């Protein structure tokens, strides 16, 4: 399999890994955003808790959770390896540079934006993932349970309500989502280019869908902590 090794360590092979994992993470964002948008039913969290219970107990979803973490780690590790290699490609920089004349700042700042998202993600996982999945283990307090129909399910809704009472947390979440938005605006269309999809008919459509998708999904994500803090959802 030396051909596979040659491919995966080539510059284009590494980019393909970024592209495929990036698109996979985008599909995760769609699922994540859809499930969490259940809070907008404003039904005291019943729809959201039901959806969260399904996500937390379905064997297929739990298996995909492992794949998701693997994809996330691959995306992050490969990104930093590429960034390091790319820095080495220009040992001495320019005294005067005017990159704004030829490219967009967010396209040039994917590593920075990704690092901001990673920092946000550490906080986000510690807020919601660790206590719902690891509650009762490793000294992490378990979540309360709530009765829905004939089932006892974890009250993740209450967890959200409590977490989003702090203005500090709201600011961090909104900043995290803004970083994600710029990251996606470049990343969405860039993933297709790396896969070799550059087409007179489809590329303009892909670019527009990418921008629309990035803004829509990030608006929805930002609206969640903001509307809970503002008391629009209770």
């Amino acid at each position, binding site marked *: 399999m030396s051909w596979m090794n040659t491919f995966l360590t080539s510059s284009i092979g590494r980019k393909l890994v970024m592209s495929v994992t990036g698109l996979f993470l985008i599909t995760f964002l769609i699922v994540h955003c859809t499930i969490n948008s259940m809070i907008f039913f404003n039904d005291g969290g019943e729809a959201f808790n039901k959806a969260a219970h399904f996500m937390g107990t379905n064997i297929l979803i739990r298996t995909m959770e492992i794949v998701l973490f693997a994809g996330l780690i691959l995306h992050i590790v490969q990104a930093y390896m590429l960034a390091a290699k790319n820095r080495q*490609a220009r040992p001495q920089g320019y005294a005067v540079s005017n990159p704004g004349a030829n490219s967009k700042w967010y396209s040039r700042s994917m590593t920075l934006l990704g690092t901001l998202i990673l920092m946000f993600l550490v906080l986000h996982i510690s807020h919601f993932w660790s206590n719902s999945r690891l509650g009762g283990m490793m000294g992490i307090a378990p979540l309360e349970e709530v009765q829905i129909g004939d089932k006892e399910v974890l009250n993740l809704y209450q967890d959200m309500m409590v977490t989003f009472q702090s203005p500090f947390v709201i600011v961090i979440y909104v900043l995290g989502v803004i970083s994600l938005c710029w990251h996606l605006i470049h990343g969405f269309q860039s993933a297709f280019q790396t896969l070799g999809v550059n087409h007179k008919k489809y590329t303009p459509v892909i670019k527009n869908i990418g921008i629309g998708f990035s803004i829509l999904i990030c608006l929805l994500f930002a609206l969640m902590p903001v509307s809970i803090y503002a008391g629009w959802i209770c």
Partner: protein
Amino acid sequence: MTMNIKLRIWRQANAQAEGKLVEYQLNDVSANMSFLEMMDVLNEQLISKGEAPVAFDHDCREGICGTCSMYINGRAHGPQKLSTTCQLYMRNFTDGETITIEPFRAKGFPVLKDLCVDRSAFDRIIAAGGYISASTGQAQDANAIPVEKAAADSAMDAAACIGCGACVAACKNASAMLFVSAKVSHLALLPQGHPERKKRALAMVAQMDAEGFGSCTNTYACEAECPKGISVANIARLNREFLNASLISEEMPK
């Protein structure tokens, strides 16, 4: 119309020496001089003062050979779109302006002296696969091999690449993808290039990586700075060619 300008130019005695930016005042520069003519005037003054002239690459001065380079005020080939440095005129600058001139910077383009960089990495990439193998002998009849008009046009657009290296100089990753993609596309689009297309994509990308150029992050700075307007659609084509050769074809990498 004439103007007085201040120049900050990268001076470096040789590949091993430490370099630095040196300031020069140049007066009575005609607005209708080309940038390289302005450099000639500066050099004549330096020579008459007994100083070493600034070394810079130039050849045809018609914008077609790809020899001139220079990173001018933070842009490859200066501020003018679709232009090489030799086709840049002093009227693009203003009286009293400070102009900073640096060599193209990339690990794959080591500085030889002052503003001259060694771009032979591009020659080695071409030698790795940027050619077709054809039997010698009588030239074939024209139109013996039908070529679709759109493909011929796209191949011609890709073949317009003059190999100047502005794409590498402008890219934040010093990536040579636009150059390599233009050369691969030019041949991949034509029937004459088909027999060796898999081998070509694998060999040229391998050589590009070996020369120490960075990877493409799709900022498209290369396309914006390319004096010949080479499109990043070629980069997508190179990605397709490489993915096809690596993952779908039975061609083995060397």
